[in-house]
Structure formats: C-alpha cells, structure tokens
C-alpha cells in the first residue's frame, strides 16, 4: 500500500540494496555450554543482517520495540560479533515469519515474558559472527591473503599489508562466499559494545516527531474503522439505526460484527461523531453484570478455605491451626488494572478476498496471523504483518486470541473493499475494552519464632486464570494451577519449614490478561509485605532478617546487599521519612528496591527516593537496564498508588480515561538510583522485573512511617465503584 507517510520499507532493503545477502543456511553449531538444553536454530544471517553498499548495517529485530529496548539490545549483540561501528547500525522490525523469527523461548514469533535478550543472546551473536566470517572470507579472496591474518575492528576490515576496506565495499562479494561451518564467538573479556552505554537507534526519530506508529499510517484510499462496543462484557449488538450518522460528512457505512457495531468513515473525527450518532440495540442476556465490590466479597469468602495446592512442604495448615496468638494474618486486595499504553490499540488491514496485508504494532505476529486468518477465513500463510513501532503495550498488544488484530480483520472484511482499513480505538475503548490484570484476593497466615525464623507460611490466592480458556491452557495450567496466578508466591525464596501456597481459580465475564510482570504484580506485593510484617514481629531488621532467611549464595541476597549499600540503609525510619525494602525475582532477573516515603500535605504517601539493585546476568546495555528499572518503578508505583479499574454494581467500567484512571505524573516520580550487580551468567530480561518490588517497598516504608499496613490497593483510591 502506498502510505502517504512513507514507512521505512523492509522491501526496499530486501530488493533495493545489493550487498550481503547470505542465502545459504549455515549448519547449526549449537554447543552445549552455549546453547543450554535447546539446540540453536540454523544460522540465517540473511534474515537478520543487511549490509548495504553505503556501509550501513541494518539489523532486523524479531522483537517489537515499544520502549523496552530490544532494538538496541539485539543490534548490540550482532554488532559486537560483527565488529561493526555502532554508528553504522540501523534497526528495523522483522516481518511476520515464524520460521525465521520465532522467540526461541516460545516457538512463536512473540515478544513477552522479558525474553527478548535472553532468547536472542546466542542467536544474534552467532549471526553477527557468521556475517563477519563471510566478510573476512571475501576480503581474503580479494586480497589473496589468508583469512586468519585479517582483522576487523569498528567496521573496518584490514590486513598487515596495508589493505583496508569498509563493510559496504565487500558486502556483495561476501554474499557469494561459502558459509562457514562453525563460528567462533568472542571471549566476553573482549566485548567492546556489550556492557557499554550505546545510543539507542530509535532515539532520534522519537525526539523529532518522526517515529511512525500504526496510528500514523496514511493512504489515499484508507478508511477509518471505529467500533461501538457494549457497555457490559458479553453483550451483543442485534440492530443498528444509522439514520443520524448518515448526516455526518465523511461517514461511509456501518455493520454489526461480533464485537459490536463498526463505523466506517473517511477520517477519524467523522468516525467518532458517527459512532456517537448510532442507535444500537444490545442483547445483554449473556452480559457480565457483577461489580467489583461483589467480586471482592466473593473472593474474600473463598479465601477462607484452602484452594488447589500449588506448592507445599511440611504441614503449614496444622502448624497454624495450633499456633494460637503467634499467628499473623493478613488479607490483600488487588484491583483490575488496565495497561493503558499511550498509543491506544490500532491496526491497518487490507483484505483483497484472498490475502491480508497488515501493518500494526503486533506483539505476537504468529498469534495475530492466526487470529486474522480465522477472522477472514483464509490460511495464516496468506496473512502478512509489517510490524510497526508501538506506543507502549505493557502486555496489551499480545492476547491469546489476537483480539484487536482479529477485530481489525473483521472490520476490513465487513467493509468489503480492497482498501486499507485502519481500526482506531479511543482511550475510552481501551479502558473499557477488558483484558485487564485480574482482580485478586490473597489471604496469608504465618508464624514467626522469636529468633526471626518463620515457622509456618500459608498463602491462599483467589482470582481469574489468565491462561485458562486460551490456547496456552494445556501448556500453562497444570492440575488446576495456572502458574501465572501463583508465580512468585509458590516459589517464594525464604526458608520456611512448613509452607503451603494454594489457589482458587475463578470465572468472571471480564477478559483478563498478562500485565507488565504478570503474576508477580500481586504475588510480589503479598510475599514481600508479609515477610516484612513477620520480621517486624520478630524484631528483626528488614534486610538482615531477609538475608538470614536466604542462602548466602542466593541472587536475592546479592541484590539485597547491593541495594543496602547503595542506599546507605540505616533502618526503617528517620525523622519524617520511612524506609521499606522489597526483593523479588521475576523472569529470572533479581531486583531489590528500597523506597523512601514521606507524608504529603494531604497525609498521603509521597515517594521521594528509590534505590534499586538488579541482577540480570550479563548487562548487555546498562543504559537500557537503568531506564527499564526507572520505568518499571514508575509504572509499578503509579498503579500501586493511584490506579484501579472498577466495575460498578451493574458491571460497567467506572474509570474510562486518565481523569479517573490516575496515572503517575512527573512530580510524583521519585529520584531513582540503580546499581547493576556484576554477573557472568547469561543475560535475562529487564522489561518487567523492575515492577514487582516497588509496591511492597513503598508499603513497607509506609508501615514503618505510620504503623499502617496498606494491603488493599491502590494506596490512594480515587472515584471507585
């Protein structure tokens, strides 16, 4: 499609540039010590690296860039082994193609679970090494010298004889070189780019209004689609009267679809006006009509009984039953939360009756291809997706059902003409559209001995399963336990002889979804505030007390010690300031945070400073890691303090925009200091793990300051149901 706003065309690189086109497969050279248990896929440098005659090196990122830095990270890995000059590196999204671009941790082309760097670490390094070897081979042939005598440094290929070349001049010849049978990777001691702060390749366009998101794609034939959705989940449109909409200039047509009623217009504002002007009859017989208050009351009741056992050792139940006055008991309430990325959901689909050409910020192209194909009644291989930058996601752009991708396809099919149809969601659509972090209730009971050891711990969790009822259920739900409901609780790190974590998986008509750090959003809060209360009862320091319950070699202990030193920890209270700590592992990354909290003029918490220690293995991009810790802290803090997505007693969403769904603003953002713990372990992700510790760290600080434990989130309820 001929976008008026030209998207940087992947095809221009595929077709327009000569240069290094490595068509042949390199044999897999998986080495056990590098690859872990899974064999690495065949090397296909051509799929990931383009070297153009103008000397630019373009990395195709199989992971979507919506702020967490995979463009920088994946490019760093390639550039390191390629010995490229960082200034010559460009990055674009790879198109949809699961054979080439699967997430090696998942088997599908999908960004999530903070896996971008972890699954790409060896693959992208080997890709860079393969491309380097072919450039060297081309130089050796041209210069008639042994390849072993050729050096590559910062984008320059050279030989002691004085011959030098940049990559671009040799790219064409390199494409015809035989593929190496093996690649030798650098000793990490010789890393030149990995571990340094590199400028991010997406910064310039994002600082000049030039970055193109799905919403920015334009075409002379483009039609805007907006969907009127029901006020309650599960209701269906049965009739529509568009007589008023027809009076609006730019209105084209409307149609009933499973999601509601779609309005087509020539541009966005007429689409909004026309949607408002529709008279729609809804069938609410199957609609969800239960409010948040009733759901919480129901979950509270359920939490009094143990659920399906997720993890157990010893006999926590019996010990607590006999414990008497030694028992500490605490309930927790976590509301539904919307992801609310800055860019609302959108997608462009052009359907010619046979094939669909799609352009949007697709977090899971493999899932979306399937969902679009199903919606259109075609095969997934006839669906292509050009992945666009997205204005945030926090999980929302990946659903097991490919919800908005399928909706966009349904709209394109309903319009019935071979033109690009851009589905646009407003903020209200986004907030009312479901796929929330589930509402959970936790009940915890524990016993602490006078020496500070925890003698029993019983944790009951009640809430909807994210994976249940999705294609992931078979993989992720075992014996009634959805691991995403209990992760971070069933495997909490502290030494407790008698332990049980159990789960009641509930059903509601409210669509739910993973939300930045998934189960850890609530399990981290519950475990880390609860252990803090137990330690306080035993008269122990929160940090030393935790360390005493951990093995000395535990990586949790490492980040706790690091954050203690960074903050100059002196205890839980100093004057008008309270201090709280929390440590949590998620996605195999370990983060500890200390929050400094004061009372503001309204008597509410004001978080002034946060210290953060992170152990994510090898630090590929320290600047990105620090930024993700800051961002994760801000995202987690804003929601813990202010955000709640409630349903009123009739099942309607109460908070439909940022006026009521309060977002953190600049004056509420604390100073953040980050220390990255040195590690030689293979790298793990940082997009999510900064989130879980901040809520409990603030709650623990607030309890230190005020004596009150905040356990029902958010801290500062706004207008609620």
């Amino acid at each position, binding site marked *: 499609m001929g976008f*008026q*706003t030209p998207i940087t065309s992947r095809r221009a690189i595929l077709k327009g540039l000569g240069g290094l086109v490595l068509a042949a497969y390199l044999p897999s050279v998986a080495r056990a010590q590098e690859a872990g248990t899974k064999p690495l896929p065949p090397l296909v440098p051509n799929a990931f690296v383009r070297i153009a005659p103008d000397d630019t090196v373009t990395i195709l990122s199989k992971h979507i860039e*919506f*702020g*967490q*830095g995979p463009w920088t990270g994946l490019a760093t890995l390639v550039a390191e082994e390629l010995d490229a000059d960082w200034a010559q590196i460009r990055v674009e999204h790879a198109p949809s193609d699961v054979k080439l671009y699967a997430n090696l941790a998942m088997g599908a082309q999908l960004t999530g679970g903070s896996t971008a760097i972890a699954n790409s670490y060896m693959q992208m390094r080997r890709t860079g090494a393969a491309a380097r070897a072919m450039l060297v081979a081309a130089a050796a042939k041209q210069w008639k010298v042994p390849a072993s005598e050729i050096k590559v440094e910062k984008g320059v290929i050279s030989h002691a004889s004085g011959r030098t070349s940049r990559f671009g001049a040799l790219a064409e010849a390199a494409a015809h070189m035989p593929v190496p049978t093996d690649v030798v990777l650098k000793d990490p001691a010789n890393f030149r780019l990995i571990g340094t702060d590199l*400028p*991010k390749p*997406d*910064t*310039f*366009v*994002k*600082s*000049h*209004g030039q*970055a*193109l*998101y799905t*919403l*920015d794609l*334009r075409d002379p034939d483009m039609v805007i689609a907006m969907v009127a959705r029901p006020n309650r989940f599960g209701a269906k449109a049965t009739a529509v009267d568009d007589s008023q909409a027809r009076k*609006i200039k730019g209105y084209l047509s409307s149609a009933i679809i499973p999601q509601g009623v779609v309005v087509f217009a020539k*541009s*966005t*504002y*007429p689409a909004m*006006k026309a949607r408002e002007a529709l008279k729609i009859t809804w069938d609410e017989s199957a609609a969800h009509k239960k409010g948040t208050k009733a759901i919480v009351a129901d979950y509270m009741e359920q939490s009094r009984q143990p659920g399906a056992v997720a993890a157990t050792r010893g006999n926590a139940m019996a010990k607590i039953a006999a414990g008497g006055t030694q028992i500490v008991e605490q309930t927790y309430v976590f509301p539904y939360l919307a992801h*609310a*990325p*800055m*860019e*609302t959901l959108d997608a462009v689909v052009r359907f010619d009756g046979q094939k669909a050409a799609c352009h949007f910020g697709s977090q899971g192209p493999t899932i979306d291809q399937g969902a679009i194909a199903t919606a259109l009644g075609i095969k997934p291989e006839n669906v292509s997706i050009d992945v666009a*930058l*997205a*204005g*945030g*996601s*926090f999980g929302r752009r990946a659903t097991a059902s490919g919800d908005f991708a399928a909706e966009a396809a349904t709209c394109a099919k309903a319009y019935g003409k071979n033109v690009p149809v851009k589905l646009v969601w407003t*903020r*209200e659509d986004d907030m009312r559209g479901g796929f929330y972090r589930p509402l959970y209730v936790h009940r915890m009971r524990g016993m602490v001995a006078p020496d500070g050891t925890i003698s029993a711990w019983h944790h009951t969790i009640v809430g909807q399963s994210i994976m249940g009822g999705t294609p992931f259920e078979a993989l992720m739900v075992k014996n009634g336990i959805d691991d995403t409901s209990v992760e971070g609780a069933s495997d909490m790190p502290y030494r407790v002889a008698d332990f049980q974590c159990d789960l009641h998986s509930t059903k509601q008509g409210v669509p739910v979804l993973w939300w930045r750090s998934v189960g850890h959003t609530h399990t981290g809060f519950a475990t880390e505030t609860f252990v803090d209360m137990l330690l306080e009862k035993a008269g122990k320091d929160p940090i030393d007390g935790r360390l005493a319950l951990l093995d000395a070699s535990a990586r949790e202990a490492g980040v706790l010690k690091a954050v203690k030193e960074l903050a100059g920890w002196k205890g839980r209270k100093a004057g008008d300031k309270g201090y709280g700590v929390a440590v949590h592992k998620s996605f195999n990354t370990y983060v500890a945070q200390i929050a400094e909290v004061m009372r503001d003029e309204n008597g509410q918490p004001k978080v002034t400073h946060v210290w953060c220690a992170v152990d994510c293995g090898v630090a590929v991009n320290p*600047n990105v890691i620090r*930024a993700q810790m*800051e*961002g994760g*802290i*801000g*995202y987690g*803090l804003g929601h813990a303090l202010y955000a709640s997505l409630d349903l009123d007693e009739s099942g309607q969403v109460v908070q439909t*925009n*940022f*006026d009521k769904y309060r*977002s*953190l*603003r*600049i*004056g509420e*953002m604390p*100073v*953040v200091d980050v220390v990255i713990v040195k590690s030689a372990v293979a790298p793990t992700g940082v997009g999510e793990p900064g989130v879980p510790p901040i809520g409990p760290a603030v709650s623990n600080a607030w309890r230190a300051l005020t004596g009150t434990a905040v356990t029902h989130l958010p801290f500062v309820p706004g207008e609620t149901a």
Partner: protein
Amino acid sequence: MRISVNGQAHDLDVDPETPLLWALRDEIGLTGTKFGCGMAQCGACMVHVDGMPIRSCVTPVSALEGRDIVTIEGISGKEADAVRQAWVALDVSQCGYCQSGQIMSAVALLSVEPKPDDKAINDGMAGNICRCATYPKIRAAIHAAAKSLEG
C-alpha cells in the same frame, strides 16, 4: 476555513468543530502530534498556538483562524534546538509516543522560565503523562537544555 501551521496556510474543508489534532493528522498529514486521551488529560497532542502550549485534542479548528500554530515538525528556535539535543543526548524516550508532547511542553517551559528548578519542571510538565515513566530523564534533559542555553 484556513489555518496556519508551521508557517504554511492550509485550507480545510471539515466540520468546524473538528479538533485541531485530527485536522493536523488526517487532513494536513502532520502525524508527529499524537492522540492519547481526547480530553486534555495526557498532553500527547500538545502544540503551540501563538507561542503558548495548547492541547490540540480539545481545540476546534474554528477557534484557530488567524492564529499561528506550530507542531513538533515545525518547532524552531534556540529552546527547541536545546531541548531536542538534550532529548537525544540523554536517550529520553522509551516507547516515544508521548515525547512530541513532552518536547512541546518543555520548549514552552524554557521559553518563559529559562532556568527552571525541579518545582517549575513539575508544574510546567504536569500536563504530560508518560506511561513508560521516562520522567527522570525528562527532568534531566530539561536541566541540560537550560544549561546549554546559558552558554
């Protein structure tokens, strides 16, 4: 109806109530100004009108005839240069979607307050939400831009 954007006149054939945001994006093709909330809550749609920051998502084009509208694509001057340079040097953006609006607010702030302290930054930037929470870098970039303007 005729409006002036970045020094260029544009004739618009739209409903006069059309918010400037959608006229810029759909009619004129300037997509650097973003839609975030549609109700003046988030600041993603910030543009300058006669040098003052306004939210284009709630400003009808009918109110703008004869006014001087400047968007992220057209913002110029020493404050704008300093802000953009600082934004790049500090790698402020994450998803980047709100940054056009952040930059427009930052330029407006520095135009009236060349050396803002943290409180002035909090006040001047309070209307701009960043869901990625790049706030520490936004703050640092504004201080850096202010410093570069001194010299």
